[in-house]
């Protein structure tokens, strides 16, 4: 069974995003970029399934600017076998929306015929949380979103999902789409020899047009602004004063 793992290049998890003064977006110039953390978990899960003998090949895909190649090289260094970059224009604001990404991924899945497609549940940039579900809908296949545990058994996959209030387990017929939640696994670091080896692994470059997908956005961002800033309040001297304040709130 082949596993397809889409990965996205996003602002690094540890960088605090800054809104541009003209309100046109978030400033990404000279900012450290990395693989979306949920996608790292997706790559790791695919590798673990391969190590368990449940998968034969892992294909990493990224839809983004030329630099998304670096993200794909990271996936290859972690253990993916080959990569496909669907290159989009570099200009600012050219981020491809989840619906168009899902259409491109569907076209790739039609060619590659993977048994599983594992995606991050959302990117930490636009926080949409849509691509996996949309891809599943377009393919007419089942989805195990927000996965906490993934077990492939014969022609099914059992996914334990993180839902409000606890966990839900579903059984999905393969091929299926899985989206990862934070606690599915802890992604490995690529070792230096593997980073070197990854440079030799195949990476094909395509365009959205190769798959016949129109990436014109459906949503227009009119402006991006800072969230309202919360002002620091007061500090109380001791517990007695705190008790007074809490009682004044009328909750005790």
């Amino acid at each position: 069974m082949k596993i397809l793992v889409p990965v996205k290049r996003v602002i690094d998890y540890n960088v605090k995003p800054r809104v541009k003064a003209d309100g046109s977006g978030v400033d990404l110039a000279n900012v450290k970029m990395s693989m979306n953390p949920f996608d790292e978990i997706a790559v790791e899960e695919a590798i673990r399934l391969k190590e368990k003998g449940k998968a034969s090949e892992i294909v990493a895909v990224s839809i983004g600017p030329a630099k998304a190649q670096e993200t794909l090289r990271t996936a290859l260094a972690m253990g993916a076998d080959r990569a496909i970059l669907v290159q989009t224009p570099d200009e600012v604001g050219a981020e491809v929306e989840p619906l168009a990404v899902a259409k491109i991924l569907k076209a790739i899945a039609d060619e590659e015929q993977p048994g599983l497609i594992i995606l991050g549940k959302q990117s930490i940039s636009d926080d949409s949380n849509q691509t996996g579900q949309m891809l599943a809908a377009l393919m007419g296949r089942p989805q195990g979103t927000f996965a906490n545990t993934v077990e492939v058994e014969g022609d099914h996959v059992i996914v334990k999902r993180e839902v409000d209030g606890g966990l839900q387990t579903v059984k999905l017929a393969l091929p299926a789409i899985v989206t990862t939640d934070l606690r599915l696994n802890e992604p490995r670091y690529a070792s230096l020899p593997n980073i070197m080896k990854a440079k030799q692994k195949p990476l094909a470059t395509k365009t959205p047009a190769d798959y016949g997908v129109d990436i014109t956005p459906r949503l227009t961002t009119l402006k991006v602004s800072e969230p309202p800033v919360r002002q620091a309040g007061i500090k109380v001297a001791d517990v007695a004063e705190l008790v007074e304040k809490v009682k004044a709130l009328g909750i005790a």
Partner: protein
Amino acid sequence: MKTLVLVEHDNAKLSDATLPVVTAAGKLGEVHLLVAGHNCGAVAEAAAKIAGVAKVLVADDAAYAHGLAENVAPLVAQLMGDYDAFLAPATTSGKNIAPRVAAQLDVMQISEILSVEGPKTFTRPIYAGNAIATVESSDPKLVITVRGTAFEKAAAEGGSAPIEAVTGPGDAGTSSFVGSEIAKSERPELTSAKVIVSGGRALKDAETFAAVITPLADKLGAAIGASRAAVDAGYVPNDYQVGQTGKIVAPEVYFAIGISGAIQHLAGMKDSKVIIAINKDEDAPIFQVADIGLVADLYQAVPELTAAL
């Protein structure tokens, strides 16, 4: 504009998470509700009583019993012929189903809206709430998830909408429900609690967390939350996590105890009405957002506070 709102429920009880979505939908136009479930008559009756609802559609079928997206999304997509907008709560259930509906309708979903600015214009958080985007849709129909803490809850009583049975395509045959482990608790749900007491890494271990945090929460009838650090360290289960990658909460009062205030945690609780922080490090970032701060050793301060309330 005619809107269809997905009702969140467990076949027996309508979830409060539905109510802010009714408010958001009301800003767009006429509000109809969809109850997709099995033996869910009581939910439909509760839905009909929500103020401002014009009609309730009920799809009662074993295929919809567990809210499987593979089965519910085609039902919604089929009904959307008569509607201009579909809205669902930004809960794990709504987030699971809505994008599937959007793809079937070939429209881009607008996720976790915070406000309605116009018939096709909304604000939504990006970068974990570090920025707010105002977006306008060019699609013929809207598919939206609504952040519950951003809208007032519609009144659960006062309406008397007619209930109409509908049928959908039923079981898609690709997925099945195996089981669920839902934590049973006397406490309020984190996302709907009026008061939340949250603990951080400073609580040392599971026993200490329980010994310090639980009595205060009991006294206040509060839900218990935790920072990601406390969850990762195994003090409490996953679903206690408040933050960017956990639950987004906005209670009346939020106690942050032994929580330093990492960006990722603040993203999940900074819309709380009143934030109270107890931390022994006076430079902890949590004090920059707290309304009331106490610099103290939590092992002394929290039991004292609990005893005095």
